[in-house]
Each structure stands twice: as structure tokens, then as C-alpha cells.
């Protein structure tokens, strides 16, 4: 069936492969969380880290825009408290402390199709992918042109282009897509992957969360 790589571990793997990720650490205690937050610099985000939980929001496992140590400590206590009370049977790895991301959310993903083999997906995040299924696919490997073309194919492409969104570093997104295509070619053991969300802004693209299934 293969195994799942999640959260901090997945981000570390991607960073090692040269991809831009938000700085992230796993904290196993309140003191640890406070120390990691100071090391990253405020504001930070806290996220529940459990192999048994897919939707962290539904488990009340996310705190964003924490501005100082006391907010981080309080957030840690709340997340762990809620989780151990509500879901005593589930495993807890700790809480991820992550640099606060910003910009437009996009999703980059990969799947293995029975007929086509490895395929790459790109879409706008949040409601665009959930409700409107506004995503585009390309076969892996692909060329630089395809990376650009699969962005332009989205109905919501104007969201990325609109001045209201602020300047979005589209070449950085294009590089990320192309890089992921090459990464998957180098790692045929990867069967499925979600990079969701990836934040894109004028500062480039930053992978915020990742799930990887390897054989």
C-alpha cells in the first residue's frame, strides 16, 4: 500500500530537494514551541500534527497569526488540550510551529493514473479547488511552456493576474511546477502528492503543507 509522509517530515524532504517551504519545526512541549517560534520569528502558525488527522481545521488544530510567546504557549495548550479530550484514542506527534504564510493559496499535486502514469495538477486553493474543481493537469515530464500554460488554462487565472491580488510572482509558480515534474521523474517511488496550500505572493512561492505517498 505504501506509506504516508506528512507535515514537518514532508516539508523537510521537499526542502532537501531544493523546494521553497515555510520554515517549520515539530514541537513536543509548550517550552519547545515557544523556543521554535522565537527562532522562526513572529508571527507564526501552530498546527496539530497527528498521523490520524487529515483535516486539521475540523479538529480545531490550527492557530494562525500568533504574535508573541504568550500567544504561542496558549495556542499550544489549546490544541493539545482539545485533541486529547476529544480524540483520546488518536496518536499525537506534537504541534508544528511554522512561519506565517501569506498571499494567494494554490494547490500543486501529483497522482499516478493507471493509463497515463504520473500526472501533475495545478489549481487555486480553497473554494476554487474544493467547490469549482478549477484545476488543470499535465503529463509528467513536462516542459517550461506547459507549466505556464497549465496556469493560464485555469478559469481563475485572472485571480493570479489581478492587481487586486497584489503582484504575484508567476515565474516562481512556473518554476515550482516544473521543478515538481522533474522531482517526480527522479523519484518514481512517489505515487501521490498534495502540496496544499502553497502560498504565492510577490516574495515567490512557499509550500505550507504537504502529503506524500511513497511505495
Amino acid at each position, binding site marked *: 500500500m505504501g506509506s504516508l509522509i506528512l507535515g514537518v517530515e514532508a516539508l523537510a524532504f521537499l526542502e532537501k530537494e531544493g523546494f521553497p517551504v515555510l520554515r517549520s519545526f515539530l514541537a513536543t512541549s509548550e517550552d519547545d514551541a515557544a523556543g521554535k517560534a522565537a527562532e522562526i520569528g513572529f508571527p507564526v502558525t501552530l498546527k496539530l500534527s497527528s498521523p490520524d488527522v*487529515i483535516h486539521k481545521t475540523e479538529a480545531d488544530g490550527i492557530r494562525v497569526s500568533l504574535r508573541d510567546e504568550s500567544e504561542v504557549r496558549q495556542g499550544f495548550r489549546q490544541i493539545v488540550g482539545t485533541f486529547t479530550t476529544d480524540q483520546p484514542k488518536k496518536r499525537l506527534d506534537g504541534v508544528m510551529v511554522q512561519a506565517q504564510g501569506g498571499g494567494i493559496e494554490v*494547490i500543486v*499535486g*501529483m*497522482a499516478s*493514473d493507471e*493509463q*497515463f*502514469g504520473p*500526472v501533475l*495538477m495545478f*489549481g487555486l486553493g480553497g473554494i476554487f*479547488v474544493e467547490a469549482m*474543481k478549477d*484545476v*488543470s*493537469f*499535465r*503529463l509528467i515530464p*513536462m516542459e517550461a*511552456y*506547459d507549466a*505556464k*500554460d*497549465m496556469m493560464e*488554462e485555469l478559469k481563475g487565472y485572472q485571480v493570479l493576474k489581478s492587481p487586486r491580488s497584489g503582484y504575484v510572482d508567476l515565474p516562481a509558480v512556473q518554476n515550482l511546477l516544473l521543478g515538481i515534474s522533474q522531482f517526480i521523474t527522479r523519484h518514481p517511488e512517489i505515487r*501521490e*502528492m*498534495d502540496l*496544499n496550500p502553497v502560498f504565492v505572493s510577490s516574495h515567490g512561492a512557499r509550500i505550507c503543507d504537504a*502529503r506524500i*505517498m511513497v511505495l
Partner: protein
Amino acid sequence: MNEKLVQVFSPGSIAVIGASNSFDKLGYHVMKSLAGNYHGKIFPINPKSDRIWNLASYPSLEAVPGDVHLVVIAVPARMVPDTLHACGRKGVRGAVLITAGFREIEDDGGRVLEEEIKEIAGQYGLPIIGPNTFGFVNLSSGVNASFTSEFSRIERGGVALISQSGGICHLCGFLAIEQRIAMSKLMSLGNRCNVDFPEVLTHLVEKDSSTRVIALYIEGLDDPRRLLDAAKSLRGRKPIIVYKAGKSEKGDSASRFHTGSLAGNHAIWKGALRQAGILEVTGTEELLDTAKAIDSCSLPGGTRMAVLSGQAGPGMIASDALEPAGLKLSRFSEATQRRINDLLPPIAIRTNPVDMGPAWYDPKNIIAILKAVIDDEHTDGVIFLAMYASANLNLAEGMVEYMKAAHPFQKPVIACFTAPPGIWDEPIGALDRKKGVAILPTPERAVQAMANLWKVSFLSNGRG
């Protein structure tokens, strides 16, 4: 394979195995398609008759004197393996296997039999079109190797339609006759024993000078990358358009990944076709309209369109259709506008969309306006709309006269000429597909075909 296919599609001689004089046999209908139509040698094969369709017939393929290039096989499935061995021994170049009852049937025996014939074909290096096909029609060289003789009525032209389904060939083939679409090839690949889309695609691009546009109808392929890789390696040489059926398939609902659950078969096809430089169309009308436009017109260099209409309403709906299709109204240069103003009195709207109503009785001026907008450097193509009214009876014939001396248009012109049956039929036939003009039934379809011409132009040339 490629060399053999040249002889398969333009054979100097054809044997029909299972040829028959009785209407209830497919071998009868294959003979009907060939006799009196095909100019090479025809050898009917049937152990029980001497003459079939008034031609000398032979008891077996071995008994045929001389070379046989193509065989058309219409015998029961169980007899096919022996028949193919006979073809191999005779050294035929290829076979059309009309017989059904192979892997398309529920009974597992069909799949086993198909494996067997595949092996025999491999043994002799024998290309097989089918099994489970109506055959093929090569209009460019006057070969109707199918069981539907009426396909020979399709005009000869540049559209090759290659289909996974014989039914779609019948749907599109008869519409082609009705809508003056001119074809080079019409073919169903059936179960694709060893002649599949990539082989035919390569043949049509590299070896078939009569084909200008390749239209594919695809239901599903075991190895789609083979077709896509072939298309990629041939990119920019001939436009390829695809109508892909089977859109209802969803992604993997069991996947716990967003990507996996969204990666439906059609969603991937859509991206993969675009990646291979292939235009995807989503209906029969769009497939045929687009193929006809590509076969008839120059490709546009951009998206700026002139709309010329004899009546305001059709011009308005054509203009409305431009933007959603990715096109826009062009803004004429001053010189062009002056020229139009000279040709039209000021009682009409003379800016784009141009109301040509006041010139309606003067085909010479209509042609002059058309030429002026085509020469305009800010215009990439023209939508031309003419509805019949009793008073403009002579318009279409007048246009035919003036078009005789005209040079072919270097920009696409897609037109609607609408009249009661029998009134403008002849001039419409004389204008359609000549000098860079394609005629389609409605303004919206004209605009959609124009938009697809632009997409084809972009897919072939625009890759940065």
C-alpha cells in the same frame, strides 16, 4: 508499417474474402462499394460461386492470379485465423477485418481469438485495420473498402476522420455529404489489432499529402501516451483535432489526496491533449465545423475579427459570440474605414460590425468591402453573414461571378448563407471551400469555428 500502409490505403488490387451476391451478407455490401467505383483489380473470393457482382470470382486467395495488395475480410470469426494465414502466404500488404466477435464481445473466447489473430499478423508483418470495423474509405484515391457504398459520395478534400467507432463515421460521413465537408479519409479502427491511432496519425502526417487536417474520435485507449507522444513529435505539421468521448468518469473517490480525487480520466485527457498540441472539441458539430474551416481557410494570425452582415441581427449575435470564444471585433484602420464609407451610403452602420444592407443588391460592392477588411492590417479574419430575401435573389450568384477573378483570401473568411432549399444551392456550392471561404450554418457556429482556427494556429505555432 508506414511503407505498407501506403499500399494498404491506395492498393492496386483488392480481394474480398466472403464476397457475396446475397444482400444479407456484409460481403455483398463490400462488393457494392467497390464494383464500378474502384479502378484497380477486384478479386471476389467465395468457394461457392463463379461470378459475384458480375465479376469472375475465385474459390480461394491462393487461386488468384498475380499480386493482391489489400484484402477485405467478411467471413465468420472462427474462419479468420486460417484466412489470415492465407493472406500471409499470398504476401498481401494488409487487411481490413470487418468481422466482429473478438475482444468487444462478452464471451472470453472473443479475447482469445483476438490474441490469436494478433500473433498471426505479427508472424507475417501484416497490418490489420480492425477487427470489428466497417472498413475505410480513401476518397483521395477512390477506394471505398467498406460496407457502406454511399460514403463514395463524400466530396474529395483534406479532412481525414479516424474513429474508434464505425457509428461515428456513419454519423459524420453523411453529415459531411449534407454540409459539403470534403474528406481525404474516413476510417474506423475498430479493435485496433495492430493498426492504432499513432500508426495512422504518422501515416497521415508523413505520407498522405491529400490530408490537411486530422480529426480523431477517441473513446478510450490502453496506452494514451503512445498517441500523445506521436502527436508531439509531429507537432506543427498538420492540425490535429480530437473529440474524446467518455467524460463522465470521475477521479479516484477512494483517494485521500485532493489531487487523486480530482484526477478524473477526462480531466487528464484534457490537459494531455493540450500538452501534445492537439485541439480538443466537445461535439460532433464542432468537430466537423472546425475540420471544414481548417481544410478551407487560412489560419488567423490573431483574434481581431471583422463582422460583415447584410442584416443587423445576425451581425449582432456574431459579435456577441466573439468575446466568450476568445475573439474580439477589430478596429479598422482609417484607410479601410474610408474605403468602406465610399462603398456604403451613410444610412448604414459602417463601423465594425458592418451593416452591408444598403449594398445588398450590388455584389460587386459587397466583394469590395470584403476585400477591404481582409486587407486591413488590424483584422485577422472575417465573419460574413448573408440571409436570403426575395429582393437579394441575385446576390449569391453575383458573388460567385466576382469571386472568379479574386485571389484566394490570405485570412480566414467564415460565412453563413441562409436561403430556402433550392434557391441559392448552386452558388453556395460554388463559394464554399473555395478561395479561403468556409460556409457554416449559423453565426454562432461560424464564430466557434473561427475561434478554433485561432487555437489551432496558436497550438501549432504559438508555443514559446
